[in-house]
């Protein structure tokens, strides 16, 4: 009974907060609601026995990516956008397409069944601690994807300098 109650709370909060986020006019408010949503998603990860993800959801998404959004929102000084309509023209069609897609996917998700159980049972992860299990899997079996990740993280560092800082000194 208790797991269902907690799941219901998290599901209602996450979906509700997501709806609140996409309908805000003021982007700073949207970011604050998004922060609350990320914290709730982190709480949901705890129930999936993924405590390390609960933490990095807060450290990376809430603590870094969303802060970057907040910096951009404040940097661009979007006060003149305030009076304009929130949504673009012809919203109804897009919402209807989205709802049709929602029905299709929810019915598909309702029929999903889980496959074979692997060797990482809940007790095993509890005994070894989640971080250790994830670290040994990541750095023993997925070394090459991890190196590619290094190159992907190299890109924004170069891009931000090339695009944001003008070549001629003194400007910006």
């Amino acid at each position, binding site marked *: 009974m*208790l*797991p269902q109650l*907690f799941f219901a709370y998290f599901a209602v909060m996450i979906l509700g907060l997501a709806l609140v986020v996409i309908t805000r006019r003021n982007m700073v408010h949207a970011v604050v609601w998004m922060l609350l949503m990320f914290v709730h998603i982190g709480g949901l990860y*705890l*129930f*999936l*026995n993924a*405590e*390390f993800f609960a933490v*990095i959801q807060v*450290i*990376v998404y809430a*603590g*870094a*990516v969303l*802060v*970057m959004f907040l*910096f*951009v929102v*404040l*940097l661009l*000084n979007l*006060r003149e956008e305030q009076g304009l309509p929130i949504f673009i023209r012809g919203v109804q069609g897009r919402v209807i397409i989205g709802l049709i897609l929602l029905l299709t996917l929810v019915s598909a998700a309702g029929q999903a069944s889980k496959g074979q159980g692997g060797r990482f049972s*809940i*007790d095993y992860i509890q005994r070894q*601690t989640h*971080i*250790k*299990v*994830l*670290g*040994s899997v*990541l*750095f*023993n079996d997925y*070394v090459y994807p*991890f*190196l590619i*990740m*290094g*190159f992907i*993280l*190299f890109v*924004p*560092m*170069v891009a*931000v*300098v090339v695009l*944001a*800082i003008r070549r001629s*000194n003194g400007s*910006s």
Partner: protein
Amino acid sequence: MNPGEYIPTNYLPVLITIIAATLFGLGALIVGEFLRLRRPYRDKLEPYESGNPPVGDPGERFSIRFYVIAVLFVVFDVEAVFLYPWAVAFGQIGIVGFWAMMIFLLLIFLGFLYDWRRGALQ
């Protein structure tokens, strides 16, 4: 224990602490609302600008350098998040995983050096 029935019971005290801390902050502010006096007038409510009436809109003239710092922060944060499992599982990681992390750190540091040379950190 089956998936779907798992409850992280050892996080219950954390939940209680978070609720208590939030209630403490909100409660202190709300109690304060009733205790203090309130006599606002127009000049008192103006934003502080050394006594002069405020000029201009806050938020203009804001350097792009802050955004560069934010992006570097995001990249290093993700790097640190990859470092933690590597550090904790260090004893169970083979030599390939060890050198992979060295190459990863080298890549991040090269990007950082590039930014440094191009003067992004001024």
